[in-house]
């Protein structure tokens, strides 16, 4: 299953408090919006794969697995003033 949502939490530099700005990212909407473009790009993808002698179906399967594996990824970076957190659900 591909990730359907993510959250980004930012504490901007220069803010006096420890409060973070939480930004929910509905990834399912991103996928829905990107779908028509992906369908349009599919023939180009197939041609590029065949030109470089890569099985396009296998490439698609691996990319899909890569996308699915992004779930539960968590990255946070913080210093004294700024912090950013990304969590993919």
């Amino acid at each position, binding site marked *: 299953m591909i990730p359907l949502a993510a959250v980004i939490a930012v504490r901007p530099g220069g803010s006096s408090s420890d409060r973070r700005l939480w930004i929910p990212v509905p990834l399912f909407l991103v996928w829905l919006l990107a779908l028509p473009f992906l369908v349009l790009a599919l023939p180009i993808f197939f041609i590029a794969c065949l030109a470089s002698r890569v099985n396009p179906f296998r490439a698609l399967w*691996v*990319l899909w697995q890569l996308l699915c594996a992004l779930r539960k990824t968590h990255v946070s*970076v913080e210093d004294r003033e700024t912090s950013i957190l990304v969590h993919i659900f």
Partner: protein
Amino acid sequence: MSDSRRQVLDMLAAGQITVEEADRLIAAIEDRPAPAAATGLAERPATAPRYLRVIVNAVDDDEGPIRVNVRAPLQLLRAGVRLASLIPPQAQDEVNAALRQHGVGFDLSQIKPENLDELIDHLGDLTVDVDGEPNLNVRVFCE
């Protein structure tokens, strides 16, 4: 009483070691898990790790303390290695040459999907602690 403990006590009785040394040895024996044959339990595999963690704690003169905390699913690593196996042969040669130039004698074509599980199983025992610079601490481990 286990053989190891009896051996330590015998050494203590013979005056070969001090009480403190015996105490340390017995503590070390108690920390060590009992062998499967002695407990009558079959050896069970530990829970498979699911995430690769990278934790960096650094202190910068200008920025102050910096913390980086990354938790990446091992599944992502699997998918990444599979992606690497899709690299066309001619591109693999170029990547291998570039790696060799930087002193990394690694052949990308050696990464096969069938070796992946073995590789990831061994990652479970991986813990890398880097304390090279005075204000930098890097820890890489699986959980």
